[in-house]
């Protein structure tokens, strides 16, 4: 390439930068500074902004709940349980909690007591390493109890009975700070999840970070990109009229890079879940939340 051509291209790039500045929204800033608080039912204050955890090492200046990126009508639905379309599923989950199932004639409540006491704080620390040293998601703990303690059938990871009970359990921790462990036995899983977060998958060669770290607050087509936090899961998606699990969301985001996605309930997505959860350490558990 000639010197002239090089200079022309260099100039073009400099101009491009200037124009990039004016055309693009500013990524990685507070998406909605006017919205100061989220209080559910007028009584559960939710932390929607928090200092970024140290392990992020400045990759995000501050962390934000996905709720902050949604429009006013969607935000309002989440402020009142009577308007939150996920709440009937929470009720169904509580019913299942109290119902006897399986060959041992037991209900969850028989061992854990009322769901309000037995499950308070559990969502905030999931996923976590079990006694045998394996990383387990909430769904794994539930199925372990069902199969090995109740003599009941395992719930399908992504089907309604499981989504109901995880929604009911999440709701018992609303307002508590997410605080997953990333050190000790969790460290290798966390490293695996971090590696995945920054890997540019698929024919579009995009990582989670390409969209949720570099471009949060920008728009991809009509979608206002959030930080991709999971403190609000399971979420009720208005577009799908359904509760959506963490792994279902991850599956879809990887698929949309034109990649071969990862199995829901598989080891890869469990590790990714731990890492993504840890990026939200300090936000409140907010599930079940409402999203477009």
């Amino acid at each position: 390439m000639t010197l002239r051509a090089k200079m022309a291209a260099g100039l073009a790039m400099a101009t491009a930068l200037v124009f990039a500045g004016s055309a693009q929204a500013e990524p990685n800033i507070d998406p909605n500074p006017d919205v100061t608080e989220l209080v559910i039912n007028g009584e559960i204050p939710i932390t929607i902004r928090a200092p970024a955890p140290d392990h992020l090492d400045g990759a995000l200046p501050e962390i934000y709940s996905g709720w902050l990126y949604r429009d006013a009508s969607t935000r309002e639905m989440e402020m009142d349980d009577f308007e939150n379309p996920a709440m009937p599923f929470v009720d169904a989950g509580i019913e299942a909690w109290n119902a006897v199932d399986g060959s041992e004639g037991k209900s969850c409540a028989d061992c854990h007591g009322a769901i309000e006491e037995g499950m308070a704080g559990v969502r905030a620390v999931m996923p976590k390493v079990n006694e045998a040293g394996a990383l387990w998601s909430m769904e794994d703990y539930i199925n372990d109890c069902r199969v090995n303690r109740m003599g009941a059938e395992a719930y399908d990871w992504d089907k309604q009975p499981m989504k109901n009970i995880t929604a009911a359990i999440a709701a018992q921790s609303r307002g508590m700070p997410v605080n997953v462990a990333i050190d000790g036995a969790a460290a290798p899983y966390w490293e695996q999840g971090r590696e995945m977060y920054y890997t540019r998958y698929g024919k579009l060669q995009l990582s989670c970070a390409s969209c949720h770290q570099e471009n949060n607050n920008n728009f991809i087509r009509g979608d206002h990109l959030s930080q991709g936090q999971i403190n609000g899961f399971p979420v009720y998606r208005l577009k799908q009229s359904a509760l959506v699990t963490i792994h279902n969301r991850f599956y879809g985001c990887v698929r949309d890079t034109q990649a071969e996605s990862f199995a829901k309930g598989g080891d890869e997505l469990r590790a990714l879940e731990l890492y993504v959860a840890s990026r939200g350490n300090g936000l409140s558990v907010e599930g079940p939340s409402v999203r477009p």
Partner: protein
Amino acid sequence: MRKLFVLCTAGMVMLPSVLAAETAPGDVVFGDLGAVEESLTGTAGNAEAGLEVATTRSLGNCLACHVAEGWAHMPLPGNIGPALTSVAHRYTEAELRGILINSKHMFEGTVMPSFYNVDDIIRPGDGYTGKAATSVEPLLSAQQIEDLLALLQTFDEPEEE
């Protein structure tokens, strides 16, 4: 290596290569700054076909990330990348072709996909199905790149202040 597209009829030997020769993704020659001088197909692009490629999700899907006056009729363009309305003033034809083929040569680490590339793809999928790809094809064909180039060359509105 250049692939010759020949009409093959049973029993017939190769036709002379007067038919268009297409450059395969691995054979594209990039200049220092990522420009590509030579047409991929030798056939001039069609801007109208380019607009179709740019605004179709399963093809270029450029409007997912870019605003442009040329597709102002489409709802909700994204803003991940810069507006393209005046892009013909900013880059030469060869530079634009290079950006369309593989913009990572010009913009290191960019999130913009490489549209005519088959290298370094991790877990290639079969479109948007979530299933594994059976073979790795570039996102767009050589002629679709030339069609997009023809489109971008019409994006010559004066630069805004």
